[in-house]
């Protein structure tokens, strides 16, 4: 091999440079702590023709309103993301409703003097709320981290308050049944009575949870969803308790049995009326509750209720009443699935979303420009900031939930989220 001339064309050969052994903690000479390139990379400075003139905020505000107001044109592309909940959630709504209704019934029984039924109703409430935490945890994307639901107390978020109320209700329900079994009826009655306060929220917050989203169907039904869900809760709770009491031997003409029948029928009739009212006022936004699979579920549920109510009108004997109670329970479940399913379709209904949004824009030509807008302004009613103790508690819960996740194993798959394209079909890494 010939010797090549390796003289560099320019400069000299590289050599090891002078260096010193670093001291521990020595600063690197070239390091800058803050690069601050955010400022210099701004191209359009005052020496360009990008924006030479002065700012006219009035004109800008006018232009904004003009373009955002007026007639709705074509709607392009998806606007919202639909919720990701699966079958566990409507089922949990149903169980929670039964539990709440049963707790109402137990207090009513106590007030009427029927202690035995009250005790049984309290047991029904506990049995109904028992599967709820499991259902909710199963629906989470990372089920191992379920403890984080109790990491903060945030009244602004219905889901957070709902989680706390579920814990409270379960605790009180357990205490009440425990008192019953231990032969402390007065304590049981007191705890059961207190549980109505919590149960009232548990049975109604699910409607609030849906209403406080951007989904047109739910948001426009915000005043109706809560009461509708409460009616379902009362009716299904009464139905479940009534069937349990009958199985336990409650005699036919007993005032409790009659009273429960009244509650069932009254609550379901109330639900029908409220649904009808809501349907009428929703108009276009209610499309997804009237068509498709959720529409069929909803219509079927309404028919079930109507048949049940008719069965109660005629003197067809106790068995017809049991059939009616079962119909109410089934209809209650179908109502939940219909509402949740229709919400998913409504979120994908771009036109409904756009219409709902446009409806609240006031244009410069609008005569109602001066109408007062009462909205819950975050600045006006800001929640209190977490104190040091709260922050410590939150950190503790976070660590506990990460530990729980590690111990229980991951519910979902892990992606090595590298952009080099590890395909999603690769098996999960623990």
């Amino acid at each position, binding site marked *: 091999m010939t010797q090549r001339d390796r003289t560099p064309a320019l400069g000299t050969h590289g050599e090891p440079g002078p260096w010193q052994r670093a001291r521990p903690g020595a600063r690197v000479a070239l390091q800058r702590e803050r690069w601050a390139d955010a400022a210099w990379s701004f191209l359009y400075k005052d020496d360009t023709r990008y924006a030479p003139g002065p700012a006219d905020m009035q004109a800008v505000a006018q232009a904004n309103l003009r373009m955002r107001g007026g007639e709705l044109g074509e709607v392009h592309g998806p606007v919202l993301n639909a919720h990701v909940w699966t079958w566990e959630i409507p089922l949990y709504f149903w169980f929670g409703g039964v539990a709440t209704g049963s707790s109402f019934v137990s207090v009513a029984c106590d007030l009427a003097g029927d202690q035995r039924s009250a005790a049984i109703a309290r047991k029904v409430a506990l049995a109904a709320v028992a599967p709820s935490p499991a259902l909710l945890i199963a629906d989470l994307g990372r089920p191992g981290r379920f403890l984080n639901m109790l990491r903060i107390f945030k009244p602004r978020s219905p889901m957070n308050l709902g989680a706390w109320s579920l814990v409270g209700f379960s605790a009180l329900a357990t205490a009440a049944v425990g008192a019953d079994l231990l032969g402390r009826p007065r304590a049981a009655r007191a705890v059961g009575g207190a549980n109505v306060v919590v149960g009232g929220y548990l049975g109604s917050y699910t409607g609030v949870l849906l209403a406080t989203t951007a989904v047109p169907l739910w948001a426009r039904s915000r005043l109706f969803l809560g009461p509708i869900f409460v009616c379902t809760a009362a009716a299904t709770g009464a139905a479940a308790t009534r069937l349990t009491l009958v199985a336990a031997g409650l005699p036919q003409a007993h005032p409790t049995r009659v009273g429960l029948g009244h509650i069932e029928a009254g609550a379901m009739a109330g639900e029908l009326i409220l649904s009808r009212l809501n349907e009428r006022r929703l108009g276009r936004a209610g499309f997804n509750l009237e068509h498709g699979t959720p529409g069929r579920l909803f219509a079927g549920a309404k028919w079930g209720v109507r048949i049940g109510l008719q069965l109660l009108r005629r003197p067809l004997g106790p068995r017809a009443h049991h059939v009616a109670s079962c119909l109410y329970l089934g209809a209650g479940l179908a109502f939940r699935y219909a509402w949740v399913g229709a919400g998913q379709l409504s979120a994908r209904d771009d036109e409904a979303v756009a219409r709902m949004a446009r409806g609240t824009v006031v244009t410069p030509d609008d005569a109602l420009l001066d109408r007062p807008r009462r909205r819950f302004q975050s600045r006006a009613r800001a929640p209190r900031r977490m104190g040091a103790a709260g922050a410590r508690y939150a950190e503790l819960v976070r660590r506990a939930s990460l530990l729980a996740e590690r111990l229980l194993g991951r519910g979902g798959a892990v992606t090595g989220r590298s*952009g*080099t*394209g590890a*395909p999603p079909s690769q098996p999960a890494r623990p």
Partner: protein
Amino acid sequence: MSRNLPWLAELQPEMFAELDPALAADRGIEDGGWMVIETARGEIEARAKVTPRMRPLKVDGRVVHQIALPWHWGFAGDVRGDITNDLGALSGEPNVSIQESKAFSCNVRVGRRAGPSTQRLADVRLDRPVRADEDDPAAEYPSEIT
């Protein structure tokens, strides 16, 4: 090349051709459907992108439609597609011999290209004609990042 990087591959996943709505309607080509562009030298298939941005010309009393084709795809990579170079003559630019011809007159028709799919050309050399049921790239060689 950029076809091997999933972030870039997902931005433009398939070979496509842009054409105006009048031409698409005339040939029965649907937006997002398959079309074949054929010249005297060869034919390629591409997904159709029907857009009003392409406007036909009226030259010497005749209507002349334009279609737009990108140069990007090939047999290898995460996303594969036919190669526009197949339509033109092999004319190399004098300096570095890069393909020089960028404009052709062509015909378009709806459907898939006759002959083996690009997937199959990449991996298989058959000594017999490809059967119709064998020639379904999505079934045999699904894109790795879908």
